[in-house]
C-alpha cells in the first residue's frame, strides 16, 4: 500500500481528491480559498491598525490558518514518507524548452536553478522569488482569489467572474513563460 501511494499520483486521482477537499470544507461550513490566509496573516501581524482592508476579526479565519498548517504537514509527510521528492517525469518537449533557458532535466521536485540556497543568495535568484511572490499576493487579493478560490471553488459554482480571473491567470502565465523568462534566464 505504502509503495503504491509512493508512486506519482495520476491526474484523475488528484483532481478527485481536490474536489473532495472542497466539498469537505463546504460540509464544515467553510469555503475553499487558500490566499485569504495571506490577508489574515497581515491582519494578525497588526496591519489593521494602519489599513482599513485589514481591519477585521482575523480570529474568524483561524480555521483556514489550521488548513494552512495541515498543508505544510502534508508536504512534510509526502517528502519524508511517500517519496514526494522524486524527480518529475516531465515531458520531453518541456525538458528541451527549459534546457534552452539553462535548466537541467529534473532530478527532484523543484529546479535547483531557482530553489537551491545558492540560487536565492544571488540578486537575480532572490528577486525572481520575491517579485514572483509579490505579484501572486497582490494579484490574488485584487482578483479576490487564487487557484483554489477561483479555478476550483468559483468555476464549480459556475461564476463568470472566476472564469475571467482564470483567463487572467493564463494571460499572465503565458506572458511570463514566453516573453519574460527568455529575458530573465
Amino acid at each position, binding site marked *: 500500500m505504502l509503495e503504491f501511494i509512493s508512486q*506519482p499520483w495520476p*491526474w484523475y*486521482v*488528484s*483532481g478527485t481528491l*481536490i474536489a473532495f477537499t*472542497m*466539498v469537505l470544507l463546504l460540509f*464544515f*461550513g467553510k*469555503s475553499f480559498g487558500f490566499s485569504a490566509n*495571506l490577508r489574515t496573516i497581515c491582519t494578525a501581524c497588526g496591519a489593521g491598525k494602519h489599513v*482599513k*482592508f*485589514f481591519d477585521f476579526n482575523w480570529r474568524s479565519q483561524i*480555521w483556514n490558518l*489550521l*488548513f494552512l498548517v*495541515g*498543508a505544510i*504537514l502534508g*508536504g512534510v509527510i*509526502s*517528502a519524508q514518507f*511517500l517519496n514526494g521528492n522524486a524527480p*518529475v517525469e516531465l*515531458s520531453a518537449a*518541456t525538458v528541451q*524548452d*527549459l534546457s534552452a533557458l539553462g535548466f537541467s532535466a529534473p532530478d527532484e*521536485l523543484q529546479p535547483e536553478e531557482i*530553489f537551491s*540556497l545558492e540560487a536565492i543568495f544571488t540578486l537575480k535568484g532572490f528577486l*525572481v*522569488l520575491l*517579485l*514572483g*511572490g*509579490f*505579484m*501572486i*499576493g*497582490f*494579484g490574488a*487579493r*485584487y*482578483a479576490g482569489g487564487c487557484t*483554489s478560490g477561483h479555478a*476550483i471553488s468559483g468555476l464549480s*459554482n459556475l*461564476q463568470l*467572474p*472566476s472564469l*475571467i480571473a482564470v483567463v*487572467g*491567470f493564463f*494571460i499572465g502565465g*503565458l*506572458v511570463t*513563460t514566453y516573453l519574460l523568462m527568455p529575458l530573465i534566464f
Partner: protein
Amino acid sequence: MKGLKYIIAGILFGIVMSKSEAISWYRIQEMFRFQSFHMYGIIGTAVVLGTLAVFIIKKYNLRDYQGNPIVFHPKEMSIPRYLIGGTIFGLGWALTGACPGPMFVNIGHAYWAILVAVAGALGGTYLYGVLRDKLPH
C-alpha cells in the same frame, strides 16, 4: 478539538498536491507550454466533480455538519478587477511555479527558498490593501 478537522483536511490537500506534483515548478512550466495534459487533467477533474457536487448540494439543500444550510456567495461582477488582478497573479504564478497553497506545501518539503516568495506574497497582499481604493474594481 474543534480545529483538528481543518488540519486533517489541510494534510490531505498537502499530500495530494505534492504526490500529483502540482506543487512543482516544472509542472507549471509544462502547463503554460501546453506540453502535457497532467495539470489540465487535475484542474478539469476537480472542476467537473466540484460542479456536480455544488449542483447536488443546491438541488437537495444539503446542510453542513452543524445543520446550517450550505450557502454560496455569488461573486460581484466586474471585468477589470478579475482580468487585471488575475493577470498579475498569473505573471507571478509562472515565475515561482507555485500559487499560494503549493507555496506552503513546499515549506513542508524543506524548500526553504520558497519563504522568499511567501514574504513577497505577504508584501503584495499588504500593498493591495494600501492601494485598494485607488485601483479600478
